[in-house]
């Protein structure tokens, strides 16, 4: 998907119709479009225009998301008349040019009162002969089609606020990272295939089995059908709870952001962050202590039970020594050699049947433990070493208990301090707003805990269901059937199961392959950008991880800064779009991979100069199209320097304000252009001007 143009009418700060076109890279690889905007000029609104046009919703950080109508347009409209807001996005795909238009019409019922009347969605495609045709006959189908181009759950990867992009690297986002990888890199197709076989196909076969005469077979087939239905319900439940956890995480972030902005609470919020960091560090240390101990337990733990065995062995060996069984006075090999050479050491001949020969044979049979002597002395010597290892284990347990006790106490202390801070944050002396925010935050946190618990329950139910299904399938295989048809269905069921297993196995390999390739790419990008000796990786469970070497071991970095997490998240998004582009093409007639744009609001917000320059340098190299929304303070020399050769289009979001003396200019490529304009109009508005 390559974005061509956007037109918005009366959308938030943008009065009347405003249009812009985007750089597509057709002119010498210029893929970057920059929008410069003063604070409040509508950078976040513009980002939301894309999201609203595509999905009919807005991002969580847009304030008052219900009020999309431009204030000036609303003020001008007479009471009783209609006010409409619309966004029209044009983009190219391999099968043609698409145009999406979403329009919301409201009726002005009072000076500042509106009632939403309707919302419509149009989707057109220009075909090869240049003719524009409407796509799909209902809005629901059009929406579905749009989400096939770019799934709703994935837009946070492509349309994002750079100051919050580190969320992608947060624990709540692992599932969306995995989903993003699977969807964009075409792994989901295997999962869909497996699911189709395991549900629809199996269900049909099971239903046919139930039609047959075998009573027991009918009963078991029904059991399988019921389990399958239950599985679907559990999966849906699980997906809902996972989405809820993610959304609650975003909501919590927004509330905490608001607390940070209230002057009286800022210090407390900082202290809360510091304590949380301490809590995280203690958590990591706790796991580290457990890990180190478990290695000792794994190696030597069994010796805790060993004393009985060791002392009994020692006693038996000692007894044998006392009896003189070991060391043997004469080695069986020596006697064997004499018998085979038939000559004694004194030179006497020893022939079979003679008294001398029989005497030697008797000696040989009495050598007893001599054969085992080496092994017994090895075992006896090992007893001492094993006891030493057991003592090492005991010391390790003692140390482990001390360490754990210390860490748990420290963590408890941090938790208590956090509870005090939470109390203070909600103290009514900071004002009603503060108290309300904290109350809201507590509720969200409680809800999130509840949702996390539900996830654990759902996963457990899913495991139990899987086990039960396996048992029922096994039963079906063993049940005898009278009819030929029944036997055939049973074989088909078995075959479907094998194919589903094979598809799942291929999908797993493919997923691992993609993960490895992303891991490699993110590592390279990070190495280039980062100044610290950290390593970035995508772990096997799709966590974005920063680690460092401590005593030769890879250890997760504790307390990475927001900026570092943002660079990590950006490296990941960059790797993802790069990989999707590399995959682009048709495999067995199915379109895979593709081109994806990145629309970034304030991507350089919290980054240090070094990082800014690097991000500005590699983002346009990885992505096929980049749209950047920046303020003057974010558009520094190092960013402009890194991007200038790749900029194809540049705009200013010219903010018109009623406040006198607010005129400001911005210098772009050596030319001064209006940035903020004072004028005698009570309604603020923004005009998009190409530079």
């Amino acid at each position, binding site marked *: 998907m390559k974005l061509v143009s956007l037109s918005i009418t009366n959308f938030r700060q943008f009065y009347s119709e405003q249009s812009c076109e985007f750089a597509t890279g057709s002119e010498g690889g210029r893929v970057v479009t920059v929008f410069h905007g003063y604070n409040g000029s509508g950078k976040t609104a513009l980002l939301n225009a894309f999201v609203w046009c595509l999905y009919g919703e807005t991002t969580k950080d847009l304030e008052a998301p219900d009020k999309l109508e431009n204030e000036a347009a609303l003020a001008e409209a007479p009471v009783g008349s209609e006010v409409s807001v619309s966004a029209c996005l044009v983009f190219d795909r391999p099968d043609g040019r698409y145009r999406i238009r979403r329009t919301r019409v409201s009726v002005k019922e009072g000076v500042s009162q509106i009632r939403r009347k309707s919302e419509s969605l149009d989707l057109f495609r220009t075909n090869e002969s240049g003719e524009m045709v409407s796509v799909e006959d209902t809005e629901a189908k059009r929406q579905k089609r749009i989400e096939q181009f770019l799934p709703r759950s994935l837009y946070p990867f492509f349309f994002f606020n750079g100051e919050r992009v580190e969320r992608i690297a947060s624990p709540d986002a692992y599932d969306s990272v995995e989903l993003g990888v699977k969807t964009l890199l075409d792994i989901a197709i295997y999962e869909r295939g497996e699911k189709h076989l395991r549900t629809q196909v199996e269900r049909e076969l099971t239903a046919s089995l139930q039609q047959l005469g075998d009573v027991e077979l009918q009963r078991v087939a029904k059991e399988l059908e019921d389990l399958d239905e239950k599985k679907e319900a559990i999966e849906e439940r699980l997906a809902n709870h996972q989405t809820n956890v993610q959304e609650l995480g975003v909501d919590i972030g927004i509330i905490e952001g608001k607390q940070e902005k209230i002057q009286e609470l800022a210090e407390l919020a900082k202290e809360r962050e510091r304590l949380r960091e301490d809590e995280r560090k203690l958590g990591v240390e706790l796991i580290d202590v457990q890990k180190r101990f478990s290695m000792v337990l794994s190696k030597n733990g*069994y010796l805790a039970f060993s004393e009985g*065995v060791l002392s009994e062995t020692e006693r038996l*060996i000692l007894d044998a020594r006392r009896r003189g069984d070991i060391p043997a006075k004469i080695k069986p090999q020596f006697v064997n050699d004499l018998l085979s050479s038939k000559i004694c050491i004194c030179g006497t001949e020893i022939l079979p049947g003679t008294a001398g020969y029989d005497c030697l044979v008797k000696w040989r049979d009495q050598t007893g433990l001599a054969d085992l002597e080496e092994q017994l002395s090895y*075992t006896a010597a090992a007893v001492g070493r094993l006891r030493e290892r057991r003592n090492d*284990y005991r010391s390790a*347990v003692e140390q482990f208990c001390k360490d754990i006790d210390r860490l748990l106490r420290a963590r408890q202390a941090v938790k208590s301090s956090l509870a005090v801070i939470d109390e203070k944050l909600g103290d009514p002396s900071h004002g009603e707003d503060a108290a309300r925010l904290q109350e809201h935050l507590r509720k969200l946190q409680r809800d999130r805990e509840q949702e996390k618990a539900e996830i654990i329950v759902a996963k457990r139910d899913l495991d139990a269901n899987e086990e039960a299904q396996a048992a029922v399938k096994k039963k079906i295989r063993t049940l005898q059937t009278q009819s030929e048809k029944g036997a055939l269905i049973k074989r088909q069921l078995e075959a479907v199961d094998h194919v589903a297993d094979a598809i799942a196995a291929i999908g797993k390999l493919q997923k691992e392959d993609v993960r490895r390739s992303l891991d490699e790419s993110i590592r390279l990008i990070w190495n280039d950008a980062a100044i610290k000796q950290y390593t970035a990786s995508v772990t096997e469970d799709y966590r974005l991880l920063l680690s460092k070497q401590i005593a030769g071991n890879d250890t997760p970095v504790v307390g990475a800064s927001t900026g570092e997490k943002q660079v990590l998240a950006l490296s990941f998004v960059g790797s993802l779009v790069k990989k999707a582009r590399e995959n682009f093409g048709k495999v067995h007639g199915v379109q895979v991979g593709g081109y994806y744009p990145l629309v970034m609001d304030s991507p350089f917000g919290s980054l240090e100069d070094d990082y800014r320059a690097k991000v500005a340098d590699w983002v346009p190299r990885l992505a096929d199209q980049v749209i950047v929304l920046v303020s003057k303070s974010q558009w520094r020399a190092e960013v402009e320097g890194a991007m200038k050769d790749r900029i194809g289009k540049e705009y200013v979001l010219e903010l018109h304000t009623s406040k006198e003396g607010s005129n400001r200019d911005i210098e772009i490529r050596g030319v001064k252009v209006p940035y903020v304009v004072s004028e005698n109009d009570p309604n603020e508005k923004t005009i998009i001007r190409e530079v």
Partner: protein
Amino acid sequence: MDRRIAAPSSIDVKNALERLTTPLESTGFALFESKQKALMFAASLGRFRGSREPLKQRDTGSAIRFEIFETAMDDAYVFALAIATTGELKVLDPSREEEVVTAFEEYAHGGLIEMNRQCFESGLDPLDALIYLTQEVQVPGMESIPGVDADVLRDIMKG
């Protein structure tokens, strides 16, 4: 020794062995580095508890070569276990290899059943559960303190 050492193939025990050697979701690391290590713990625990369970079927597919026990320097304990179990040093004779392996495998089976119960069915944290098991041994004469219920004492020690 030529014989390989195997775990039981019954589903519950096999699953338990798998879980003991797979990274836990909560911590990201496995309780035992390898199946050989988990079997050592199991056999030693089984012997200590006197819980020897014959194997209906051996999981020969994933049986472990004896060199792995040698490299880990755990081979002497396998020998000692056989000696202590039979009360005979001659059990180490190559002709009685089967007896050495069977004793180890059957105690490991008994131990694995207990480890499964403690680690995955008791509601305890699995690492804690293993530590409690090893701590039981460290209280000499625990069962024989007059007037004290051994179970209560064990609970106190664990707490």
